């Protein structure tokens, strides 16, 4: 295995460790916790009132436009990071390029702003 992948192998081990830790603790508590299921107990909690309709009730999701904006800026961040590390070598050229790039994206945010999607109805 190459040195590069070997370095990242520890990520996998940390995931295993976290799973083992959570699984171990929950397993441990299964030894001492009671288990007396009843019909009322497994009902969804709705402040003591009997739950009505399904749990996955319909609600207006206002976030999808934010999710779209998020994707836009997150991809921008992916491009900005490598640029940030080499800015010193690129000098003015790199700076002007990135300012234009950021400006175009800021324009997108400004457009969304003007269209009023950032405002809560």
């Amino acid at each position, binding site marked *: 295995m190459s040195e590069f992948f*070997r*370095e*990242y192998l*520890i*990520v996998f*081990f*940390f*995931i295993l*460790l*976290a*799973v083992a*830790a*959570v699984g171990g*603790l*929950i397993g*441990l*508590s299964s030894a*001492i*916790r*009671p*288990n*007396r299921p009843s019909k009322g*107990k*497994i*009902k*969804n*909690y*709705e*402040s003591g009132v009997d739950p009505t309709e*399904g*749990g*996955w*009730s319909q*609600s207006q*999701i206002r*976030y999808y436009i*934010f999710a779209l904006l*998020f994707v836009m*800026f*997150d991809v921008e*961040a992916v491009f*900005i*990071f490598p640029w*940030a*590390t*080499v*800015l*010193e070598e690129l*000098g*003015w050229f790199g*700076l002007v390029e*990135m300012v234009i790039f*950021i400006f175009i*994206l*800021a324009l997108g*945010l400004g457009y969304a*702003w003007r269209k009023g999607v*950032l*405002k*809560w109805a």
Partner: protein
Amino acid sequence: MLGLELAYWQETIIKLVLAFGVVLVPAGATVYLYLFKMVSFMQSRLGPMEAGPYGSLQLLAELGKSAQKEDIFPERADRFVFAAAPYVVIISSFLLALVVPFGPDAMFVNFDTGIFFALAVSSVSVIGVLMAGWASASKYSLMGGLRAAGQLIAYELPLVLAVVGVVIQAGTLNMSKIVEAQIEGEIFGWGAIGNPFILTQFVAFFIFFIAVQAELTQTPFDMPIAESELVAGYMTEYSGFRFLMFFIGEFATANIFAFLGATLFLGGWSVPPFVTDLIGIDPYSEAFNYIGPIVMITKMLLITFVIYWVRFTYPRFREDQLQRFAWKVLIPLALANIAVTGVAKVVF
């Protein structure tokens, strides 16, 4: 690692044992110190006093209490996703700890893309939260989960963009080299305290701090778990140890974000260069593998202190105020900070 020659598997086992220490011990310590004691003193009461001297064993009591709770799955829940959600949250906390440097050599792994990796895995917990909210099939949980997802993606951006300012200054993504850049740094030729980036990147630090507060869903950004309206948000249907996992995940992540903040803005494991000059030791010497962790913990406690101080001081933001603040204030501010830092970097 630390001058010893170890096989890969031996080194890995040591690292995994230490990972427990780094993730869980500070979490317990800060919960006792700040969440139990400090808040009590701020509110003119004593806090837990019964379990152990000054209630210092209260956490063990809480652990015992949670262990004895019945494990309840709500009847309509998606059982697999419901059970898997706490795992995802804890995995995110552990992976976040992976790249924090505690000394010149005292670190789990030295990725070249260190801070980028940290930012990437920090957003994994959003998936866990959304899974928990959805799988519970309860109205409170679903709303809490959606609110959490909306908030976490909104504040993820200022967080990432604030870090860019530091990356521009340091010229690297590697966490060790970011610390190095702060030791070597000079402010107009004066290098006695190095250049902890909080001095030049104070705008970035301000944004970073607020974004971390929101990522951790601490008050004033605790809309997703607002107890007065959503019971406990996405955690409503969880009980016993499964609930505790979310709790541990939240506080462990708080500490590790504080570690990251200390590394990025407060000089990490280093002490100001004039101190090392005074004592006459090399700032990269072996000794810092042992002093470093202490320095880091001190800085971490400082940052977490402010996090909890804010938490217990401010009232809650409304959902629309919260979104507006992220999109209309923090993100434009972070973009401006990048542009200004870039110009300053090229000019000087």
